[in-house]
């Protein structure tokens, strides 16, 4: 397996002269596994560009530690990994002097080995996949009131976040739409809509990845805010990999994507982070 990632600043951040607050990371792990992770810093938080980077680094570290000791990608390990993520992130923030508001950033990751894998969504964004036969699918996770969950809300035991969403932890606050192409190149069709309560959203939906995949990607919600382009079309374009999938293939794909969408509009309105695993890929480039 081979993984790569890239992230770009959005037009709104450029216009407001604020930094890119998304970050992405991805890597293959010894023994045939790989991960891809993205994070989106809260635009009304503090220095969340730092928080997003701490988040992806903490996720990467937690996955490496887990894989190094357990070598499983079964979704039963989600809670253990989440705990390690939060511990690493909290330690990093305390060590570096980052404030709570700096750490308000989402966390999405996909974790895969030849035995299967899953994606864990703590916040909002998109999980996308492409089967070996070329069909593309995606699930978009969207919180009510454009107020996604951030793992750093653990600091006050989620009180403020829960209150913002109405105070009832059993109320639905997160929706997930899953779309998939019935045949390669066809229009994406709605497969299902899932709803999650605040409580379930805080735990974070877990998406068990189907078999027969060639690519799995996680994206921040910037993928759903491309000027002049429906989010599903954006996903299809981003997952349209050519023959060259070695090395910095996600960066290459994103560069091409941004050039293409700039021809029809202002491109990514919000920051966009993209991390992808090529299930058949090999490390190494020329």
């Amino acid at each position, binding site marked *: 397996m081979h993984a790569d990632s890239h992230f770009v600043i959005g037009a709104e951040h450029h216009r407001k002269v604020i930094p890119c607050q998304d970050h992405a990371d991805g890597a293959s792990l010894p023994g045939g596994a790989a991960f891809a992770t993205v994070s989106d810093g809260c635009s009304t938080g503090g220095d969340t560009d730092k928080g997003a980077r701490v988040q992806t680094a903490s996720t990467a570290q937690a996955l490496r530690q887990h894989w190094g000791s357990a070598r499983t990608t079964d979704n039963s390990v989600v809670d253990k990994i989440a705990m390690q993520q939060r511990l690493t992130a909290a330690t990093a923030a305390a060590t570096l002097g980052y404030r709570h508001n700096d750490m308000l950033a989402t966390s999405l990751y996909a974790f895969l080995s030849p035995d299967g894998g899953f994606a864990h969504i703590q916040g909002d964004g998109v999980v996308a996949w492409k089967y070996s036969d070329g069909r593309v699918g995606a699930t978009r996770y969207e919180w009510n009131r454009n107020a996604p969950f951030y793992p750093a809300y653990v600091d006050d035991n989620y009180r403020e976040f829960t209150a913002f969403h109405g105070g009832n932890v059993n109320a639905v606050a997160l929706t997930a739409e899953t779309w998939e192409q019935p045949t390669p190149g066809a229009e994406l069709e709605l497969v299902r809509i899932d709803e999650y309560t605040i409580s379930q959203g805080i735990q974070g939906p877990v998406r068990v990845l189907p078999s027969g995949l060639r690519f799995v990607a996680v994206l921040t919600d910037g993928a759903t805010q491309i000027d002049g382009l429906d989010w599903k079309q954006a996903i299809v374009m981003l997952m349209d990999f*050519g*023959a*060259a*999938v*070695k*090395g*910095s*293939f996600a*960066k*290459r*794909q994103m*560069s*091409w994507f941004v050039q293409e969408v700039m021809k029809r509009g202002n491109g990514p309105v919000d920051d966009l982070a993209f991390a992808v695993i090529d299930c058949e890929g090999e490390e*190494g*480039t*020329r």
Partner: protein
Amino acid sequence: MPLLADSDGEMQSRVIAGTGFTFNAVRIGDLGATEYTLADIVVDLTGSTAPFANELRDTVVTSVATLKRSPRSDNLLLRVTVFSTMYPLGVMELHGYVPLDEIDVNAYPTFQPMGATPLYDATFSAIGAMYDYGADLRKNKFAVNGIAIIITDGCDNDSTMTPALIRDKIVQGTQLETLESLVSIVVGINAAQYRNVLEAFVRDAGLGSYIDAGDATPAKLAKLADFISHSVSSQSQALGSGGPSQAIAAII
């Protein structure tokens, strides 16, 4: 043809569209960077270059060795050809487009000049290969630009191609936006008496510029090596800017 690349990957052999000219290039699926500059160094090995053939080889070796240390070396794919009527179709590839870390400069063969000057064929081979391979790179979402440096000590006297056909290839490639930009330079060495003819060739073929490097002295050839490595590196640094390098010297 010597194998210069210490390669564990595959090369692909290609025919330049509509011609019999061929070129080799690293398989696109094996490339890992996001952007590449295609660089062609084209060297005259006709009989008249015999008195300074060793120095010409040193020029190529030095320029490639310098490029291997360039900060842009991971984003360069270099092809080196020599031309003379002693080669089939007038052109021989010492190596096709390969990453610099796969080139062993010590493996460049001794230059043994002979024959007449198929300058137009050699130039077409460089431009054609660059546009054809560049189109494949673009199709696979790589950003790509190009630079061709053609070194000659005389004017064409035995080609099947013409300046107009070279121009057509450039116009076609430009219209298709195959390369972000192309720099093409003909360098005359020991070629003062052909200056007007070579300038006319550059003009008629739609190439970028002609530079008279003067006599084939060791000092001038050393400057030529610097010029090649600087120009290639500079054009590579310009990739992403939307245009060609503005930092390439007009004299050697």
